[in-house]
């Protein structure tokens, strides 16, 4: 049946991803060992390996490139300062993702309280009405001309805007799964929740996002 064709493909992707993850784990371990001895260059190499992941998570969670970069920096600084406490019981990536996820959630909690304060005083929390488009993202788009570039930019921005309307926990789980491609088990380990919680949050988040994106994607009957 045509509608089910993606299921097998996803399993294959996960299998390939597992092989790559093993190599990455060995390299991570070597770099972590060196970084623990104070080798900042080794940690810089770790940052390069994971900067895209951490930055993308932060950007999708907060919707602002400047904030996302600040968050990503703080995440790596926290990780460096906590390296002595990292015993290697889990993968470095899982440990780092946990730091990143919790830092994002804490940032949003703080921002919400700032927003509430600003609302009380009648000021906009950040002075911005939406998500700033990224120029470097814009130039990476595939399109035959400027009009198509703009159209795609608008769609990207609209999707991002809808994404940030989800609750923080729903947003986190859908980003970890559908943007970052993590397994249910890794998401559960990263967030420190049960597998069933991941599954239910993910289902609700996906259904809500589908309903929100329906009008944008031309689904007349979306509910």
């Amino acid at each position, binding site marked *: 049946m045509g509608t089910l064709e993606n*299921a097998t493909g*996803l399993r294959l992707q996960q299998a390939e991803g597992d092989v790559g993850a093993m190599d990455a784990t060995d390299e991570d371990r070597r770099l972590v060992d060196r970084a623990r001895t104070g080798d900042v260059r080794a940690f810089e190499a770790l940052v390069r390996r994971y900067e895209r992941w951490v930055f993308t998570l932060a950007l999708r969670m907060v919707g602002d490139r400047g904030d996302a970069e600040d968050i990503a920096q703080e995440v790596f600084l926290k990780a460096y300062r906590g390296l002595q406490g990292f015993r290697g019981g889990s993968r470095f990536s899982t440990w780092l993702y946990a730091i990143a996820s919790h830092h994002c959630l804490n940032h949003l909690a703080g921002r919400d309280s700032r927003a509430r304060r600003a609302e009380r005083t009648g000021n906009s929390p950040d002075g911005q009405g939406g998500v700033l488009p990224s120029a470097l993202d814009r130039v990476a788009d595939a399109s035959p001309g400027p009009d198509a570039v703009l159209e795609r930019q608008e769609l990207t921005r609209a999707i991002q805007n809808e994404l940030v309307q989800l609750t923080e926990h729903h947003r986190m789980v859908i980003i970890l799964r559908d943007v970052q491609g993590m397994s249910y088990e890794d998401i559960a380990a990263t967030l420190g929740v049960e597998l069933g919680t991941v599954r239910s949050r993910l289902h609700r988040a996906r259904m809500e996002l*589908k309903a929100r994106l329906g009008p944008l994607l031309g689904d007349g009957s979306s509910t």
Partner: protein
Amino acid sequence: MNCQEAREAFSDLYDGALSGPPLADLSRHLDGCPVCRAEWAAFRRAMHALKDLGDEEPSPGFAARVAERIEAPRWWQRVAATLVLPLRVKLPIHAAALVLLGLAGLWASQRSPELRRAAVEHAPAGTQQAAPETAASVTPPTTAKKTEAEPQPPAPSPTTVASRKTASPPAGAGKAQGPLATPEAKDVPQAPAVREEAARPMAAPPAAPLPQPQGQVAQPGRLQSVPPPPEARAKTETRPGTESSVSVMQRSVSAPAPRSADALFSSGVTEFAAHRYEPAIDDLRAFLAQHPDDGRVPDARFLLADAYRAQGRYAEAGAEFEAFLRQYPKHPRAPTALYRQGEIQLLLGEKSGCKTLRDALNRYPDVREAATARETLAARCP
């Protein structure tokens, strides 16, 4: 299975987590229910749109900035380091402090009428005239300040009388010439306020923002001047053929300051993001011209090319993409640049665009631009 149960299973179905009887039940339901089939299609479209957001990269140099922050000493380390400075650092600092103390003492003595009077009275007759000239020759212009607010002018010495005759300041316009005035200052009509502010040390800006003369932009930490009072304004004009150090300073203040690499690059990116391509092009070109060794030059060149493209300046865009590909063939944006170049060649009516796009598809078949390129090739390159 009813419609509600079917939709509850969409998430598992999308993840490939269904098998056996549940999968068969859902398949039968979707085959027989057009509404749920449409819902499933909408669900998949939404998930694909989300997936298409893709990864994002932080700004160039992110990892290095993190390393810098790690290596930057914490506050207590900085304090400790200050307390145990090596001699090679301490000695120049102490020497500079001594010189500053000496200058401050000299300045204070010149401002004190009693001390100055005592110096004049006790000085040997032959040195009374020479002393100010000597002081003027060794004292930097920053100490030439002598404010009109001085409540009690000192008893006129031969030197101060002579300098007043030269400058002839109007009543209330202040006396810029004192025993420490430089020879240049004596020769040029004084605009007291301007001179005093210009002669103020740069490390000690005015306490409050001052109004700016027309055409002069206030910048924090920069030398500022105030408009002279009306009665002194005519005197601010430099005599033909002469140019005081003050006027040189004023001119240097008025000249536009070069913008930093960060400012130019960031402005270029921001303007681009806001669809203001003309200023983006200006900023990016200035960045490339003024900071050719900056690590962000490749990104700036790519953005510049894309800004030209967005403006429809395809010839310039094509040339820029070509230069980008020649200089940075291994850059992460090289695949995009190659596809862009092919499209632009076709837009310019060049047949070589077909070859470029085919080349791009051979080399980078899996990037996002590939699908569009295949459509373009099918439509325009039979």
